[in-house]
């Protein structure tokens, strides 16, 4: 998206219009960075106030609300008992428990008797498998971070195939709270990503012809440094240095019936176990490249090293974490603080998230309800709040993925899902509300809603919701007023 340099003063450019929406948290790809408007208007933390007429009321028990907010933003939902326990532990200890709890591997999706070893996994199987794990895993925060990386280092099941997407999901979970450098290396040779952004097909063996730049560009623009922080020559150099990486060769082939009616069969590739991509020297660039100021026959490790050495990388990831966990419009000093913590820890994601959750802005009044739950977060937290059996919840959620605007393993594009305001449209809000309607119709009897406003909404209700709740005469009406409320859409 390139705007012409000269434009009439009175005509708002697309960038300005976008900027207005970005401030409200639409987070559209790269348009957010370093525009003149951004530096002029972003405003420091100290300057930003929310008028009393527009603000949510202050929670009566501020410390408990702070802990509930922490759970809303770091888990897919919680029970009253979990909130109770976290309140006893206190904020700081709860942060540590979340960050340091070990990951839980999900159940193996590939059946032991499957001769194809998952070669034909479909999108819906993957969605069901992951949603079930989100609802049941004890490693709540590791799962939430797996989900964060799913939207950051994102690939798409239609192009990459179900098996490689399954592997990618397992990889992000294992690395969810690890080091960024290891992730950048892993994502480059991740089979799903090799397929998704065409690196698997790229050929730089003939210096006269340019290789495919698709992956090299996104590595810099979307995965690490952010737009405008490198040159086109850097993109071409990275594309040359990385050409040769391709998906791992299959271990065998097996014949399967693809159409039961006609009996049609075809051979499918079978991989015995998960593995990274392989390097084919025949397609590699034969000469030296100059990438981000360093010349030589640079390999993947050298490339990642150059990317990490740029402060832009820590800054870019820090901003994204802040927009997902702190505020749709985080203050520059918060981002700086997070970036420093990331850089000085050797890009340790635990250090970054610890800094984010313990930041002043996380607990500041203006950050209260400043984030919109994603559809997945909205649906998992609603299901947990009323205790819907996991299988029923998964069925219902899979059915609402498309309408709510979030189909797992199928991002709208390589930039992932735009957060916060990006989730709000008439059709998607209607779908969220209908989800609640169907959810509550599916449970009989419903649990008591007596403590729900306190547990899930900190007792902080807008006037309209408060009135509706007071007028409700049945449990269903009470739950409807609470779960179909704007309050419950926020975190």
């Amino acid at each position, binding site marked *: 998206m390139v705007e012409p340099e000269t434009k009439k003063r009175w005509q708002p450019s697309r960038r300005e219009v976008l900027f207005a929406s970005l401030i409200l948290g639409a987070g559209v790809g790269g348009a957010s960075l370093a525009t003149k*408007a951004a530096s002029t208007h972003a405003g420091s933390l100290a300057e*930003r106030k929310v008028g009393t007429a527009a603000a949510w009321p202050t929670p009566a028990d501020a410390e408990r609300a702070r802990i509930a907010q922490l759970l809303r933003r770091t888990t897919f939902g919680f029970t009253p008992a979990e909130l109770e326990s976290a309140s006893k532990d206190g904020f700081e200890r709860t942060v540590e428990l979340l960050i340091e709890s070990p990951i839980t591997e999900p159940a193996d999706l590939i059946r032991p008797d499957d001769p194809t070893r998952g070669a034909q996994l479909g999108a819906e199987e993957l969605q069901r498998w992951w949603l079930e794990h989100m609802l049941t895993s004890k490693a709540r925060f590791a799962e939430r971070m797996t989900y964060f990386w799913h939207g950051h280092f994102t690939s798409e099941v239609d192009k990459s195939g179900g098996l490689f997407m399954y592997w990618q999901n397992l990889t992000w979970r294992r690395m969810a709270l690890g080091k960024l450098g290891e992730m950048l290396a892993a994502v480059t040779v991740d089979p799903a990503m090799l397929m998704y952004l065409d690196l698997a097909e790229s050929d730089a063996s003939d210096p006269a012809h340019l290789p495919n730049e698709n992956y090299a560009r996104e590595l810099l623009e979307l995965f690490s440094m952010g737009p405008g922080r490198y040159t086109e020559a850097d993109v071409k150099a990275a594309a040359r240095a990385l050409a040769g990486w391709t998906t791992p060769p299959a271990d065998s082939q097996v014949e399967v019936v693809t159409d039961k009616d006609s009996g049609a069969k075809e051979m499918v590739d079978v991989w015995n176990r998960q593995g990274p991509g392989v390097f084919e020297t025949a397609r590699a660039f034969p000469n030296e490249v100059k990438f981000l100021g360093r010349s030589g026959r640079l390999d993947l490790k050298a490339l990642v090293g150059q990317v990490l050495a740029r402060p832009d990388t820590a800054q870019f990831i820090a901003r994204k974490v802040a927009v997902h966990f702190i505020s749709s419009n985080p203050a520059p000093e918060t981002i700086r603080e997070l970036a420093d913590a990331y850089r000085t820890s050797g890009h340790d994601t635990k250090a970054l998230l610890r800094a984010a959750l313990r930041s002043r802005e996380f607990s500041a009044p203006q950050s209260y*309800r400043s984030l919109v739950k994603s559809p997945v977060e909205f649906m998992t937290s609603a299901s947990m709040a009323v205790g819907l059996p996991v299988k029923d919840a998964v069925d219902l959620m899979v059915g609402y993925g498309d309408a709510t605007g979030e189909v797992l393993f199928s991002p709208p594009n390589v930039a992932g899902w735009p957060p916060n305001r990006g989730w709000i449209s*008439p059709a998607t809000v209607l779908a969220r509300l209908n989800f609640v309607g169907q959810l509550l119709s599916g449970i009989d009897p419903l649990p008591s809603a007596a403590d729900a406003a306190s547990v899930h909404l900190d007792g902080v209700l807008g006037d309209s919701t408060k009135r509706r709740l007071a007028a409700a005469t049945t449990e269903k009406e009470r739950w409807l007023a609470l779960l179909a409320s704007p309050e419950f859409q926020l975190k």
Partner: protein
Amino acid sequence: MTEPTGINRLNRRDFVKAGLLFGTGATALAAGYAAVPDAFARAVYALKRAGGRNDSVLVMIQLAGGNDGLRTVIPMRNSVLHDLRPQLAAASIAKALPMNNDYGLNHNLPRIAKLWDRGKVAVVEGVGYPQPSLSHFESIRVWETGDPSRRQVNGWLGRTISRAYDSYGHPLTGCGCGVSGTPGTLKDVNSTVAVIESQQGFGFVDDELAATVGAVYHKTPGLYGALFDTAVATVHQTVAELKRLPQVKEGDPAPSYSKDAGNQLAAALKLGAQLILAGTGVRLLHVTLDGFDTHQTELAAHDSLMTYLDEAIGGFYDELSKHGRSSNVLIATWSEFGRRPEENSSTGTDHGTAAPLILIGDPVAKGVYGQTPDLKRLDEDGNLKYTVDFRSVYQEILDTHLGVDAKEILGSRFDRIPFLL
């Protein structure tokens, strides 16, 4: 569409002020919940009024899967076609409905052929884009966004809505009919778009929910309060608009359009016609006919898809025409790519590139435009080299039909193809 009075007091300069005020986010919100979005919406509306949109209606029909252009608008005298397609070409050419000496329409398009005879059809040959992708979804994205470089996130019609129409409070300005997800073509972060799978399907799952939501989404506090309240109000307005339409019985979607209840394009266009006739303010409609990925045994499959297309378009045009409402309605087909000129060993065709687009309606200037790609000079994958950039077609639709400056939407200017009156 009636306008609230007094709204024209704001001009573009006000928009900039409001936009920047809005842009300050929390500071602006301190001014109070109601004032900011209202000023913003008013200013946007004023801007859009000045942008000079008109009341024309556009219906985009997506032929999903990659339609075989060489079997839709057939270059009848091209001997190379016989050589490339020994199984597929002969019957298509023999049965084609001649448009002129060189081109014939697929024989399953008799109603479109009649519209051609009446001067209501234009064909643009050889439409594609540079460095074509043979991936369905990548190429779909290129066509949806109008951006072959794959940088643009929003749909070209979505951007048109956010630039040139007032969709807030007019949810049916842009509408996807017969689908559950927002069509990529209509997506934009700044526009409101209705998506109606069926007349019966859009709405709250039960009345209790509708009543609760109606009571709760009112003066919602906080950063997102106005957005949520607007979204829910839009849903309520759309539901109310849909109630004004004549009720269609379930399982009997479009009897006047198609003999086949499975013709979902006919059902979607029937709904579209009702939205237009009921005066809901619908401007940009998007509908989809799926199944064009004809890798094997193409003849039977493609024949029935052509029939679906013909019945749906014929029925839609006739219904609008009968009510005197066809004069400003343009129908345009698009598909992510055409198919490979050479047939494969399964009596089908693989993913291709350029293909003809068909434009239908009273605003059309009859003719075959563009240039049929040379079947003897294929690209390295054995595919057609495009002769017309698809954005030339978008440009003509935007500039001439919708009265919207195409350069603002598409980013640059393209060769003009004057297929509209």
